């Protein structure tokens, strides 16, 4: 891995290597856009996937760490860029023209750190109110509630967005631009709408039944999890993982536990690893079941919801017996899992594995083959492989576009390298492919469960960890596979009991951001089809 940074420095002498746990280089802002273009386009590097942008406040500097991945060479590198300008108006050059998803990621950094991205076409806040005072993730942020009182009036709206540029003297210039054209007929789909699966809002400009443009408007369920984590001890940060994508609660928990264990050098027992992986895969089946149910309901086939929920209920019963909860399990902990498995866990999982294939067959008979369903889904919302990578659409949605992006295969963690399962990759890239991809992933997850259910080793389910957990100084980045795609975690520690910065890169934000791109020119009903097939979870977008 170390040679990738050397290679970059050789190709781009202005960059310097940063020593740390993960390969990372740093570059001055003035050269950053050139380096980004090189990283993306050079044949030997090909970093075509922008995983996330971690905004950072190192007190004396503001800056960003860009995590890039090459889908061809399967390498990850971090690029650290310090912001220019004063602390009042810090700026970095935008890379929105290189990676489409950067438009959204840069908005997020702007929202939390106030770093302006020169050249980003849409530099509004992403989550917080338009008139929010201060940038909450800066270390000198004033938390006084009097500054940002709970508003008793309607939310302020604007039809304008800002674009920033540099003039000849190097000063930042602001220009207002319209989001929609002047006479557009704009319909609000959301925030309270049955098809957005939560409080998400699409401002949709329509021309009759045709969609002209969609403006994604999120933040209605933003809880500031990243900010909250900075004031909590490591074990306390875990429970937030249940509250983002609540269907991948186990997977996210698993991811953060693994990252903290890696940082602290804790080795966990094999029994705990097997339990974690089984819970992950059970979650995946339950999550995909719910996807099938709600998606079919969005398309008007209400009955399918009940058929799909039958299986999901069975899984939730298994979870309830072991974890004591049907949602927000808080089951994985640092060092293993909270409790041992329930006595009839094995038997219940076997019962599930027996009914699952019959159910999948039934779903296919009643829905997948239906001529109306096929007309609604086939060829609707086609996302090409290039766009999927550029917009960072991971998970089953990305795999349906032909991008093999399963982190369980790319960076096998826990015991995934020993397991025999297939990565489901399809090529059509339409809504039907996204639907079928999930259907087949359920079968693959069942395959994993079948391999493990009879081989749960004996041993302790949780190793002893120190009561007060301090991590060494350093930063760690890790990618795992949630139910909906690549789940990135960046942890920076200053040697304390609390994280200095915990950045969560959820899979759902890019999936919601891509909706505008693939719905243009389609019908209103297709927005529901496409949005549903992306299967985003709003608390995961907003955090």
């Amino acid at each position, binding site marked *: 891995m170390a040679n990738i940074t050397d290679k970059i420095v050789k190709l781009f002498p202005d960059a310097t290597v940063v020593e740390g746990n993960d390969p990372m280089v740093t570059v001055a802002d003035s050269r950053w856009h050139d380096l980004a273009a090189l990283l993306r386009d050079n044949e030997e590097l090909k970093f075509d996937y922008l995983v996330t942008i971690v905004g950072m406040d190192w007190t004396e500097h503001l800056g960003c760490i860009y995590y890039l991945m090459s889908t061809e060479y399967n390498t990850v590198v971090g690029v650290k860029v310090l912001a220019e300008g004063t602390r009042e108006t810090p700026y970095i050059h935008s890379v929105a023209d290189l990676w489409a998803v950067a438009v959204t990621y840069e908005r997020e950094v702007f929202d939390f750190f106030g770093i302006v991205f020169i050249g980003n076409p849409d530099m509004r806040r992403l989550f917080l109110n338009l008139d929010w005072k201060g940038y909450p993730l800066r270390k000198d942020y004033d938390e006084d509630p009097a500054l940002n009182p709970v508003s008793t009036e309607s939310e302020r709206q604007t039809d304008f967005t800002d674009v920033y540029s540099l003039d000849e003297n190097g000063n930042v210039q602001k220009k207002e631009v319209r989001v929609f054209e002047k006479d557009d007929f704009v319909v609000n789909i959301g925030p309270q709408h*049955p098809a957005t699966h939560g409080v998400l809002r699409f401002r949709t400009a329509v021309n009759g*039944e045709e969609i002209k443009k969609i403006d994604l408007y999120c933040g209605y369920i933003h809880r500031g999890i990243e900010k909250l984590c900075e004031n909590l001890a490591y074990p306390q940060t875990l429970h937030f993982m249940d509250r983002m994508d609540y269907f991948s609660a186990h997977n996210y928990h698993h991811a953060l536990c693994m990252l903290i264990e890696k940082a602290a050098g804790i080795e966990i027992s094999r029994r705990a690893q097997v339990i974690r992986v089984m819970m992950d895969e059970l979650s995946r089946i339950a999550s995909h079941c719910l996807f099938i149910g709600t998606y079919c309901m969005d398309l*008007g*086939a209400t009955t399918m919801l009940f058929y799909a929920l039958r299986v999901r209920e069975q899984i939730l019963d298994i979870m309830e017996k072991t974890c004591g909860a049907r949602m927000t399990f808080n089951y994985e902990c640092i060092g293993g899992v909270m409790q041992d498995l329930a006595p009839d866990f094995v038997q219940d999982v076997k019962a599930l594995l027996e009914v699952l294939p019959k159910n999948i067959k039934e779903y296919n008979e009643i*829905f997948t083959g239906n001529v*109306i369903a096929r*007309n*609604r889904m086939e060829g609707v919302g086609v996302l090409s492989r290039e766009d999927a990578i550029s917009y960072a659409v991971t998970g089953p949605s990305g795999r349906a576009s032909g991008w093999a992006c399963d982190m369980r295969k790319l960076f096998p963690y826990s015991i995934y390298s020993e397991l025999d399962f297939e990565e489901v990759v399809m090529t059509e890239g339409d809504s039907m492919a996204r639907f079928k991809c999930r259907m087949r992933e359920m079968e693959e997850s069942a395959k994993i469960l079948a391999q493990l259910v009879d081989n749960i080793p004996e041993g302790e389910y949780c190793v002893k960890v120190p009561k007060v957990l301090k991590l060494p100084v350093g930063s760690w980045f890790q990618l795992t596979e949630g139910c909906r795609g690549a789940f990135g975690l960046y942890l920076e520690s200053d040697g304390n009991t609390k994280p200095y910065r915990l950045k969560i890169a959820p899979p759902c934000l890019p999936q919601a951001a891509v909706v505008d791109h693939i719905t243009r020119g389609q*019908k209103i*009903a297709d927005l529901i089809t496409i949005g549903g097939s992306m299967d985003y979870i709003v608390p995961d977008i907003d955090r």
Partner: protein
Amino acid sequence: MQDFSFLTTWLDNSLRSIMPGWLSVTVECLLVGVGLLLVYALLALFYIYYERKLCAAFQCRLGPNRVGPWGLLQSFADMFKMLIKEIIHLNHIDRFLFALAPYLVIIASMLAFAVLPWGNGLQIIDFNIGIFFLIAVSSIGVLGILLAGWSSNNKFTLIGSLRSGAQMVSYELSIGLSVITMVCLAGTMSVGGIVQEQENLWFIFKGHVPAVIAFIIYMIAGTAETNRGPFDLPEAESELTAGYHTEYSGMHFGFFYLAEYLNLFIVSGVASLLFLGGWMPLHFPGWDAFNHIMDYIPSVVWFIGKAVLLSFVIIWFKWTFPRLRIDQLLSLEWKYLLPINLVNLVLMVLIIVNGWHF
């Protein structure tokens, strides 16, 4: 076969014997009106229960089972709730049209009741263009929906009513053409006449191939006319929240709700009239004993039984199929149903002219 006309004639005669003719007609009209309202309300309540139970069965649930035995009183409770709910008054709407719309919808379905063949001698009005009248009054309903969507001053309702307008106007063509096909076979537009024509054999058997095609097209178009799934685009809840009636509350919403179920009954009633003999029992030429036994079942039971059975099919559609998209819906009508219908009409005429029917 039991004939209910003795009842009506007796009533008419006894009224005329005690009061002048104009007054007795007024009294009869009032009686019929009250009776119709009663039937209307009871049918709606039955249909709500019926659909909920059926839908529950399709979805592996039990459905209403708490209020009354087997949940029978559930729909009464629902209706009572609807009656006492507040009607929310909105600003920025066209008040007159907003209030008028639900009444237009309900009047349309009410008028259609007048010509349905309820039983032998139990038709409220039987005149020579009965089926034509039925098609005419059932198109008034779309006006109500358009007004509701427009007067609410809401973008969702507007899109919903535009969809509805496009859908209703298109599918009325199919309904009209399949009705004409059957009228050709019957040789009359009078509802009573159509039923009498089926005394020996129901039209779906008599007209064989074109009649079956017309029946299938009628059922598809009829489902679309009632705005039910898979054609429920005007109120597609996952797209337009509730479509044209998003802004309605209380009993005004209740009217739309009732009218939807009653339209379901009317569509299935007309289907049973045109294809399954209306109130006519199942007769086969030559099977005298069988025909005689069938005559013992009262004609009212025949009619309502057929209508409820056909409604079952429409409800089955709704709880099985996903929803169509607006362009698919329109292309289904204009590119497939309409040409098939026209060819079918020609086929039917050829069969009648050559006497190839049974």
